[in-house]
């Protein structure tokens, strides 16, 4: 069953909202690496983090303890206060 509502705007923007505008450069910013708990993700992110660090980027490892559970609001709030952008992986 398709559900819909009627758009209250002047419809000048795309039906899909553009994602939040990213920064122009990562210099001086902290990149979060979020582990969503799937197998092998820690090693994968280790490597990505290593490569990011080689480029002089600041990184911040975070995640949820198990894939099965949803991330807590508290966790998400804490992470949001520590990072400027975030890479989330791996969905298998």
């Amino acid at each position, binding site marked *: 069953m398709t559900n819909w509502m009627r*758009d209250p705007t*002047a*419809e000048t923007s795309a039906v899909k909202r553009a994602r939040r505008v990213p920064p122009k450069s990562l210099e001086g910013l902290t990149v979060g690496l979020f582990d969503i708990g799937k197998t092998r993700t820690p090693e994968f992110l280790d490597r990505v983090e290593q490569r990011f660090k080689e480029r002089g980027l600041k990184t911040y490892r975070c995640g949820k303890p198990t894939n099965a559970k949803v991330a807590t609001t508290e966790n998400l709030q804490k992470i949001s206060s520590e990072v400027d952008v975030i890479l989330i992986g791996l969905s298998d």
Partner: protein
Amino acid sequence: MAERLEAKHKGGTLVSRKIEYSDTSDPMEVCYQRGWTDGLPVTPPTDERVLEMLKGTRRRADEVVGKIPPYLGTCTVEKVAINAVLAGCKPEYMPVLLAALEAALEPVFTLHGVLATTYFSSPIIIVNGPIARAIGMNSGLNVLGQGNRANATIGRALNLIVQNVGGGRPGEADRSTLGAPSKYTLCFAEDESDPEWEPLSVARGFPRGVSTVTLFQGHGPEAIVDQKTRTAEGLTRSIASSLVKMGHPKLVQSARAVLVLTPEHYAIYKESGWDRKKIERALYEATIRPGREILAGADGVGEGVPASRAEEMVPKFHDDGLMVVRAGGPAGLFSAVLPGWLAGRNKLELQPVTKEIKT
């Protein structure tokens, strides 16, 4: 049930874009995610609700009401209805909302400026005439506060239209430094229970018995207390001494205001036989001060008039700048001022607008 079937058939007559969502999504949350709210939850605009809302007006859904600042989005009656649903309006409020929107779009109302200003102002809606009672508006206890659906949602719908159709959002085109709770909604009806009182609509040129909206650029309220004075003359000087403090005592630029005169204060005027014209004139004159009393720089305070005006008698308001509106509960020797927008170089440039409400 009938509505649902009608929606299925007549859903074709609604032309606004459909925003789809899955069965696992909460439509209320989707409205938040899409940026359609003012921070408080809105009613999801389903076809049934929008079609029901459109029954509140004879006007066609595809009729263009106008282009809404700041980005001049085209607003049809259908878009008004959708935002009216968001706000929580009943269909019978549609004529008031449509009239308010048209009043706000009059060039002299300067809606773009009101939205974009760093000041506190937003469109305040004052309703006169039989429609106020017919749709259950409040003009009495807590009139400027919460609790009445018509008061709350009509004002809210207008602000949502500016946000959603016009694209006017805080932090973007809306640069208000502090804003005000009145920017959610400030809409009320004048107390017309005393047949001897000239309603605002009549003062502004409409026949008695015709329903109108008056749109005023302002914020508020701010309290005006006087629990002691017993004479009309004394009360005038007393209220005037509060009115001149509007914004800043030495500021003479913010030259319009609505004085919401409550029953117990009005009774003092009525006892002396003062009518609207006399009250407004007396207040206007009582807020004129010698320039030398409000010079800039005195005591290190920068605000004020230049020395060249020292010998002038300087009014606080434009000569048509003070509008008295009767409202409020039966007990309480406090009235209120809704200060006008700090803008407009002369009285012609920026004005309140009154329009007839057509059903």
